[in-house]
């Protein structure tokens, strides 16, 4: 199995520890003048999402994690699994409820998502930065009201609750930033 020396540590590097795959978020090299050097890293457990600090002696080796990312379209859910397809190879992946937990709010048919695979199995699904979704529920729009900052609650087709400006109508399409969950603008086409 491929392995990495601590001197190769950098953010984004993925390795195995205690049976779980981890992603390096930050890496700092520390050395007491003379003597043993250490690598202090902030790492994310790719299964649980938990972030932790770890210190390794310089020169230690860790096993590489067989983790890769593919772009895949969301197809459907059968209630137990969520199915995605890589559009050029037609390769399909079934993701568990844990893997889709963070993306459920923004999950929409035929939209493209980043599927993180570990040993070929979906570990987590990340949404694109922006999605266009239909408003399925909100109070009637107040025409002409474009006042900055005034918002009302709304529900979109995925079931997610967001805040939208007062003029937005039920049935309209809106563009949302998935990183913040915030309304950005009205949209014409999905």
């Amino acid at each position, binding site marked *: 199995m491929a392995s990495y020396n601590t001197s190769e540590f950098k953010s984004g590097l993925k390795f195995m520890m205690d049976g779980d795959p981890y992603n390096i978020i930050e890496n*700092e*090299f520390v050395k007491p*003048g003379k003597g*043993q050097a250490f690598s202090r890293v902030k790492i994310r457990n790719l299964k649980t999402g938990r972030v932790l600090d770890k*210190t*390794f002696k310089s020169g230690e080796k860790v096993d590489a994690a067989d983790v890769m990312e593919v772009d895949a379209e969301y197809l459907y859910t059968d209630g137990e699994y969520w199915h995605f397809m890589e559009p050029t190879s037609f390769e399909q992946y079934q993701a568990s409820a844990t893997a889709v937990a963070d993306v459920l709010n923004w999950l929409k048919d035929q939209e493209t998502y980043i599927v993180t695979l570990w040993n070929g199995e979906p570990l987590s699904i990340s949404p694109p930065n922006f999605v266009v979704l239909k408003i399925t529920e909100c109070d009637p729009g107040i025409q002409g009201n474009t006042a900055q900052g005034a918002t009302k609650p709304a529900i979109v087709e995925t079931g997610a609750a967001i805040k939208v400006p007062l003029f937005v109508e039920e049935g309209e399409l809106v563009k949302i930033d998935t990183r913040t969950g915030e309304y950005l603008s009205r949209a014409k086409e999905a």
Partner: protein
Amino acid sequence: MRWEPDGDQASRVDRAKTLRLIREFFWQRQVLEVETPALSASANTDPFIESFELSTGNAGVTEKRYLHTSPEYPMKRLLATGSGDIYQICKVWRAEPSSRQHNAEFTMLEYYRLGFDLSQLMDEVETLLLSLLPKLNRDSQYATYAELFLDNLGINPHTITNEKLRSLAKQCVPEFSGNLERQAALDLLLTHCIEPLFPNDCLTFIYDYPATQSALAKTEVSPENADVLLAKRCEVYVGALELGNGYQELTSASANADVLNSELAARDEMNLPPVPIDQRFLSAMKSGMPECGGIAIGIDRVLMLQTGASELKQVINFSWENA
């Protein structure tokens, strides 16, 4: 392709001024500026410092050469030949990953003062650094290695058993994973639990290290415990940023040879490649090395403090990744 320097014009002006101040400082004290080779046929034996190695091809004969990690060996050859007080400002190289406080190529000031013991050396280094860093509080902190461990962790680093030391290190630094030899456990505690406590507004000197970390410093029996051997070595910091490493120099030829050989043995134990010992340095020690104190100071880090930079590369024109 990005071509612009990392450091800005202000950092360049600051560097030029600092180099001039250092040269003035030593000119007034009649310390001679010298040069020694950067590429040597021998290498630093310290198992925790890796030299860059290169093969030179000259008329079909290949030869290994090493970039110096400090000019210590050849400067001591000059001392042995009667050079008197000397200093050097030069680039040195250490095969280490880059970080906020590390660049594999950096500028070092190394100097030697005849007849200086460790406390005279620390005194002068304090004067020099305070003149380069006038904003620092002038009340510098001095603590022995033992005091730091006793005051902050409640242990005597010279006498604690390996077992107790290891379990304390694991308890104080739970995020550590891996094996801990004695040296690594002490270094882990120093870097993770003690250095972060040093004040940011003044110099902190650590001195009297365990003899196992003496490198080429003199050792002497502790006045408090006849079983403890201390290294007359110091490190100087501002906050957790280490600026320099000084010795009351080891002058005995056989003791110098012993250190180099034991470092080579440690390299072997750590599965590190062997490196050629500097035999010319050892010959110079045999011919007679004067009693002296010496220190190496990282100039880029001093510049970092002067300019308030948070990363080394802000004071370097072209950092490792941009070189």
